[in-house]
């Protein structure tokens, strides 16, 4: 073979290689273009999502502001007419007592009782909204002394009652102490209330370590409830007992649930009518103490 034909053959191979390389480059460029288009598309999508998020944030802020001014109006404006209703019906009772028949006096009493009840309801509603509006301030906290403090206050309301409280020694959690006090006051207050007809009330507050989480538990041997209605337990103004049997507005457990949910935890109950109730809750991120 002559040197020129060798040269031609080499050029042909080189050409073929160049062509192949070109084709590869073109394919790569096409792939890049597609990738760039995809990226642009994704970016546009993110921008849209961001705009959406900003919009939602603004809507939430507006909603929060509205909730705040609503609660403020409830606190001021709904109460004022209640005081008129209660105040003047009592004033009438005081000044016209001798002229009123027994029925008439009882009707007046019903008017002022209803106004007082509605005042308690608005106060409870405000309590609930205050929890929702409050800022969560987590810190390492031992719930045991808080619980003992609550128990001390409960005992003072009825020192004669035969009640045994068992509160574990160290119940540490990463939680907001102020909000947890609200939750424990409600849970232990309920236990105290619903054991009111027991000759000996047994109330405990403990912590169980389960494989995946730590579970706190407030348990009592009180009136309990039918688990068929358990889904209504934590909704505001829902009651499982008549006001005559056990007074209350049905806001306590709703407050507890809001506190626990604010901490990112879960709350649930187990009970049996006439055999007591147990309330369980978790607080994620709790500290383990050896």
């Amino acid at each position, binding site marked *: 073979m002559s040197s020129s034909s060798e040269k031609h053959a080499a050029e042909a191979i080189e050409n073929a290689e160049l062509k192949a390389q070109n084709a590869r480059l073109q394919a790569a460029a096409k792939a890049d273009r597609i990738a760039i288009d995809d990226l642009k598309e994704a970016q546009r999508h993110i921008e849209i999502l961001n705009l959406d998020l900003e919009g939602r944030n603004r809507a939430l802020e507006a909603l929060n502001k509205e909730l705040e001014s609503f*609660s*403020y109006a409830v*606190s*001021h*404006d709904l*109460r*004022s*007419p*209640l*005081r*008129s209703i*209660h*105040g*003047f019906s*009592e*004033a009438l009772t005081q000044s016209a007592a001798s002229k009123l028949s027994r029925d008439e006096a009882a009707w007046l009493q019903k008017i*002022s009782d209803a*106004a*007082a009840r509605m*005042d308690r309801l608005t*106060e409870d509603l*405000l309590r609930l909204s*205050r929890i929702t509006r409050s800022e969560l301030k987590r810190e390492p906290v031992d719930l045991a002394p808080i619980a003992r403090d609550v128990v001390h206050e409960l005992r003072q309301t009825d020192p004669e009652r035969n009640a045994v409280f068992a509160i574990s020694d160290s119940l540490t959690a990463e939680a907001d102490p102020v909000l947890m006090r609200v939750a424990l006051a409600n849970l232990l207050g309920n236990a105290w209330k619903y054991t009111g007809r027991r000759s000996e009330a047994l109330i405990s507050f403990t912590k169980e370590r389960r494989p995946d989480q730590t579970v706190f538990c407030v348990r009592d041997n009180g009136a309990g409830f039918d688990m068929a209605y358990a889904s209504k337990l934590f909704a505001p103004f829902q009651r499982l007992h008549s006001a005559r049997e056990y007074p209350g507005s049905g806001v306590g457990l709703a407050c507890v649930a809001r506190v626990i949910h604010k901490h990112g935890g879960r709350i649930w109950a187990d009970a049996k009518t006439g055999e007591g109730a147990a309330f369980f809750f978790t607080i994620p991120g709790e500290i383990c103490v050896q």
Partner: protein
Amino acid sequence: MTTKPILLVEDTPDDAELTIMSLKQSGLVNEVVLAEDGVEALDYLFGRGKYEGRNAKDTPALVLLDIKMPRLDGIEVLQQLRADKRTSVLPVVVLTTSSEDVDLARAYESGANAYVRKPVSLAQFQEAVRQLGLFWILTNEPPKAPR
């Protein structure tokens, strides 16, 4: 015991009536002057508007001040009172329906001497007003009149 009047600043007529009734029942003989909003309260205290010519140095024994009122609210009244030499040390008790922490904080920050939430129950309301009247009119030693 001081015989100077009590200034009641209250925009709700029913609340004003219940407060005046409770003050009377507590045995206090001090005249109660009613101002129906913040502007009227300042007019009375500074002797202007409707009270043009009243001597602003004749301060009331006590101001019972509602917070939420039209035109000028209680907090603004309080701030203006404290800013004026003639009323800077005047005893002011905030008497309000609100149990909101923000009102409580703002009232004290603005120089309130006390904060009392009006109870819904008349008996409790009467007792609160009675204690307020007795303490601020009889027990408390008021600041000396400004020169």
